[in-house]
């Protein structure tokens, strides 16, 4: 028996962003191989430039505006994919800015570090376009495996080892469970293509227990990635132990990639069975908000506090998914509110980590007490951090309020009791969250420096650039939210509203 093989037609314009990032990765490898130790600083510049250049084809593709479908529907470049790819590239760029001094001064492996970041960003970009179980799996591993290594980057530091190991074990276990779910889904549908899976699992009897099992396993696999309770245990430990720029990367880009995969899978692949995943997500979301916020209340380390706050934020982002099946409008609202939340969350959380990094350059600590008296010697950083904390708490004019509003609108547009109850839970948790954001603000503005050392902090230009970028975005989007919705409004996912 012979099979004719036709080469698939490849749309190079659509793949240009991925190709540029991959090419930058190769250039970095060569630069690393052919230059001496004293020229390693070039790595971070090359990585940053590569990430920015990859934005050019994204802009031209967005201007062109047509949805490009490749490889039999397994790889789709549409508005949804473009917005998220731009998000991943920009977050990657900010992380490169944050890493420049940290990695260069820390006697770590420099060239390899930026190769890992680029590989991970490449995985995220593929994830945004992947519409097939195999490519979603490969993208997940491409973004995760470099992240495991980055978490353990300070290899002689016991805490960093531990961070890497915990992240690795949880991540690999989760992806193994997810794969088992995928294998069952494939077994029932005979296809790995999400667009084929949807009608087939819709046609099966609703009581097919193995399909339910498959969907639950896949959702649980990504619940680990977005650190939803009860699969969050790795997050605070990994965030604390990993190098701080890597923590920022994991908390923002990696979490966003998990959400992207979840959105694609649930909206395109598992849409006909929203009766299965809605209750599951509802419980995950409510538990994530409460546990994240209550444990954040008693944290004394700013990075751990941000980790638990990030867990709670993941709970807010999961909330609209729990009611997405109520009506086509609810589905479209949920999709938009989550993408908007991801974009705004990226800006404000990266900014908060940038301030922590800048302060730790002087205090060598991320304990809350070490932020005492920050206003007296670093007023600029204090104001920046306050803006980010206001934004995370959802107080105007910082952008966070608009993200939260979107979540409430999506929950209300479903018009179901479970939606209203979840909206009340989100509101309650926003109030709880203000307690610990407010406490950090009080420490920064009101208290004295713990050791009386009020010499100013010298902030390197790369961190300043990252701060300008994130503060600017957080404030401008908070005042003019139309700038965000301009990009997110055209977003659709194939099966939504069918």
């Amino acid at each position, binding site marked *: 028996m012979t099979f004719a093989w036709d080469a698939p037609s490849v749309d190079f314009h659509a793949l240009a962003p991925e190709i540029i990032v991959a090419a930058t990765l190769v250039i970095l490898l060569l630069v690393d191989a052919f230059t001496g130790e004293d020229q390693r600083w070039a790595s971070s510049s090359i990585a940053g430039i590569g990430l920015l250049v990859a934005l050019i084809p994204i802009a031209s593709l967005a201007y062109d505006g047509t949805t490009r479908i490749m490889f039999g529907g397994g790889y789709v470049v549409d508005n949804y994919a473009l917005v998220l790819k731009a998000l991943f590239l920009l977050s990657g760029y900010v992380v490169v800015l944050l890493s420049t001094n940290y990695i260069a001064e820390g006697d770590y492996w420099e060239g390899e570090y930026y190769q890992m970041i680029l590989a991970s960003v490449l995985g995220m970009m593929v994830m945004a376009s992947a519409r097939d179980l*195999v490519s979603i799996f490969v993208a997940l591993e491409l973004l995760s495996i470099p992240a*495991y290594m980055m978490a353990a980057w300070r290899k002689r530091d016991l805490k960093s080892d*531990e961070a890497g190991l915990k992240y*690795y074990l949880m991540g690999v276990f989760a992806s193994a*469970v997810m794969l088992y779910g995928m294998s*069952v889904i494939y*077994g029932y549908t005979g296809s790995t293509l999400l667009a084929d899976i949807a009608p087939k699992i819709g046609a099966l009897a609703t009581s097919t227990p193995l399909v339910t099992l498959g969907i639950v396993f896949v959702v649980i696999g990504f619940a680990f990635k977005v650190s939803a309770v009860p699969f969050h245990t790795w997050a*605070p430990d990994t965030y604390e132990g990993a190098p701080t720029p890597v923590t920022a990367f994991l908390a923002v880009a990696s979490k966003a990639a998990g959400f992207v995969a979840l959105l694609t899978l649930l909206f395109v692949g598992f849409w006909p069975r929203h009766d299965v995943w809605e209750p599951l997500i509802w419980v995950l979301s409510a538990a994530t908000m409460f546990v994240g916020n209550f444990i954040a209340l008693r944290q004394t380390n700013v990075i751990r506090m941000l980790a638990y706050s990030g867990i709670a934020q993941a709970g807010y982002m999961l909330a609209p998914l729990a009611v997405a099946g109520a009506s086509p409008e609810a589905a479209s609202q949920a999709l938009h509110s989550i993408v908007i939340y991801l974009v705004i969350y990226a800006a404000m959380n990266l900014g908060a980590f940038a301030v922590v990094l800048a302060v730790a350059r002087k205090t060598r600590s991320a304990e809350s007490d070490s932020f005492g008296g920050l206003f007296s010697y670093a007023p600029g950083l204090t104001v920046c951090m306050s803006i980010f904390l206001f934004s995370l708490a959802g107080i105007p004019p910082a952008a966070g309020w608009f993200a939260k509003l979107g979540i409430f609108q999506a929950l209300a547009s479903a018009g179901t009791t479970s939606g209203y109850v979840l909206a009340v839970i989100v509101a309650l948790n926003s109030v709880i969250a203000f307690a610990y954001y407010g406490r950090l603000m009080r420490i920064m503005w009101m208290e004295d420096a713990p050791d009386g050392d009020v010499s100013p902090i010298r902030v390197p230009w790369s961190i300043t650039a990252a701060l300008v970028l994130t503060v600017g975005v957080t404030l401008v989007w908070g005042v003019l939210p139309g700038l965000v919705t301009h990009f997110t409004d055209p977003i659709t996912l194939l099966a939504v509203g069918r």
Partner: protein
Amino acid sequence: MLINQFLFLGAILFCIGVYGVLVRRNLVLVLMSIELILNAVNINLVAFGAMWHATDPANLSGQVFALFVIAVAAAEVGVGLALVLMIFRNRQSIDADDVDLLKG
């Protein structure tokens, strides 16, 4: 084609693997348990792949997926063993209970 026996084998391997990950304290054995889960996945995929291939000769997704899983699992375990080796060098122990600096 009857595929029950393959699915049972896969399910049993999956359960042994999950049990091993949750209970074993030796990190190398945890890695091996994860490999068991991945092999359960491969058995499932190949069995389902053969089933679909029998009705539709062009459907080879299951086998292709299994190849991807094998390749990626090798990369994953490579990183995992490197991490365990690093832990062993720094602590002279690969007991998961000893890795407990970060808490709260």
